[in-house]
């Protein structure tokens, strides 16, 4: 009998595609949350494969904090056009202008937390009943307990103590009016799997992930990029360094790492040797021991 074994990347791909198709089938109006980061890029790539030769049967939704790196926005627009997908943008600036949220104060001010309100408003405005996210269980300890199909109540809240058991590959997406689901097709990918998959599939990424020279300064152990969105304090020293980003979020809270990794293979080697998690560069996770759980409970990604 021939050997019917799938490689680990093929197994992960088959699982993610199954989840994406279940989402399209079980929900009236799903959406794919697209940040321009590598995980959401991989998710959109998988969505294209899942429904080929038809178009992706749901829009991509970007919650724009207004504090994105310009490279992220340029990449987003080009990628959406290449996919032929629809794009919905929820704007944190608009939420601020409308008085829905109040900008944080102080030097560590970030719009990271404000995104939750904009996200929930966007979900409500467009009546999305399932939002696909690129979250992975290996990322963070609260995410390790996340389901593929994760229920959110009418306030968008996650109740981690009262989750539905998820057995085999049977996903229960039933809900009441006003509730919605977050769906995580990449749950079983690790950071390394994502990089290996990007390499295998030849997926293009924003240049931010590769080493480049940039003006940075150190704050709370992170290297932050100098940009119009952060105020460098007189005591903080600006330096030009060769850096890259391991994750891409807001310019205000995403730290760079010093790196000369300029190709995917370099990055894979670097990830393999790394002794720090990728979210180690994220100031938003360092606010408290359960910062991720707290934000997720409120409706964060």
């Amino acid at each position: 009998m021939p050997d019917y074994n799938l490689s680990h990347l093929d197994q992960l791909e088959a699982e993610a595609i199954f989840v994406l198709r279940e989402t399209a089938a079980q929900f009236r109006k799903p959406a794919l949350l697209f940040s321009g980061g590598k995980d959401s890029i991989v998710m959109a790539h998988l969505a294209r494969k899942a429904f080929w030769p038809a178009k992706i049967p749901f829009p991509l939704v970007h919650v724009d904090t207004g504090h994105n790196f310009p490279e992220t926005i340029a990449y987003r627009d080009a990628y959406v056009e290449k996919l032929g997908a629809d794009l919905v943008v929820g704007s944190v600036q608009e939420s601020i202008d409308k008085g829905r949220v109040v900008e944080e104060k102080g030097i560590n001010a970030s719009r990271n937390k404000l995104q939750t309100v904009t996200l929930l408003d966007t979900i409500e405005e467009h009546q999305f009943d399932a939002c696909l996210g690129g979250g992975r269980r290996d990322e963070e300890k609260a995410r390790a307990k996340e389901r593929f199909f994760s229920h959110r109540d009418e306030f968008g809240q996650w109740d981690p103590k009262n989750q539905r058991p998820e057995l085999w590959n049977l996903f229960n997406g039933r809900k009441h009016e006003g509730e919605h689901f977050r769906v995580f097709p990449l749950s079983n990918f690790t950071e390394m799997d994502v990089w290996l998959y990007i390499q295998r599939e030849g997926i293009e990424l924003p240049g931010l992930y590769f080493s480049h020279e940039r003006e940075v300064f150190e704050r709370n152990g992170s290297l932050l990029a100098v940009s119009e969105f952060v105020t460098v304090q007189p005591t903080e020293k600006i330096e030009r360094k060769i850096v890259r980003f391991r994750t891409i979020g807001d310019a205000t809270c995403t730290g760079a790492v010093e790196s000369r990794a300029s190709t995917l293979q370099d990055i894979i080697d670097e990830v393999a040797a790394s002794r720090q998690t990728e979210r180690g560069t994220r100031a938003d996770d360092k606010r408290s021991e359960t910062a991720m759980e707290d934000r997720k409970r409120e409706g964060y990604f």
Partner: protein
Amino acid sequence: MDILRFTTAGSVDDGKSTLIGRLLYDSKSIFEDQLAAVEESSRRRGDAVVNLALLTDGLKAEREQGITIDVAYRYFATPRRKFIIADTPGHVQYTRNMVTGASTANLAIILVDARKGVIEQTKRHSFIADLLRIQHVVVAINKMDLVDYSEEVYNRIVDDYKAFASRLDNLVDITTIPISALNGDNVVEKSDAMPWYQGPSLLYHLETVYVGGEHNHVDARFPVQWVIRPLSNEFHDFRGYAGRVAGGVFKPGDEVTVLPSGFQTKVKEIHFDGRTLNEAFAPQSVALTLENEIDISRGDMIVKANNPPKVSQDIEAMVCWFSQTPMAERGKYILRHTTRETQAVVKDVRYLVDINTLHKQEGIQSLAMNDIGRIVLRTAVPLIHDSYRRNRTTGSFVLIHPGTNETVAGGMIL
């Protein structure tokens, strides 16, 4: 490189967290910032040693109460394999978590404290591994350092376990390994402390155990998940049936039957992302096109004409009850099976299994949370199914409460 999915079941004090911590740490899957965070939390809590359980117990309530509430998934890889651990709490009230973790596992690690030997909990875990048909079981006899690495103690526990396990039909591959998770004996490297033990280290066993035969590659089953109709100029007449192969092998030209309609046709092509494939097998996600235009929708199943599944409205199954609200007598639930949902009514409870003694209790009317029993169901439309024994995908289902939408039970068709 392939994937091994395994569960670890055990309670707080049998060294499960230490074992997982060691596997993760020795495979360099714990990062410095994670370790620093755990050290900091342990210090704040006043723990005497670094509490590796804090790596897996991520929820606030778990950290406050020092218990594991839910299944946590952990990942590590060696050059040979990627591993997915479903880490489940082992207390009696958490049967549902063990069942959940076991449902996707190829292998179960059952931890036995060398000082205590085979206890009720060991039996409970083994019964669940057997029920969920996990093919490979590793009995890790832990804390060997506390019994002076005694071969005699080890042999006695192995004999006890084998005597018990002979009553469980499905446990075919049982491996016993003497370890000390704390000291690392026989976890990653073979230990010098137990020269009498000739077998592999735990990690070596996990890396090399054969899991290629997990999927059924005989009975061709394709539950239709989604119909792809591009309606574009280029693909005007394309009508693809998207799904994940649940069993067997499909090839272009294969004669197939579509259930429940019974229409027969042939597989025209197998599509995946702009390519056509020569074959598709479980668990691949692909799209099939067929020679004839037939009305097919989600929930239908495409099968090989010469090898049909069972089609019936009367189902007997073993179920594990998950909900705090017990099963209602003659209760109606929504049954989700493959890509189809239907209503089901509980006709009868045949018996409840005492999972500590394996005794069957008859004359029971209902099942409560964490109960496991055999029931009879009548469904509103026929289920296109196989026994769970033949196929884990087409033989499993969940029951959903129609009012609360809660998943109340998991079932395995007999």
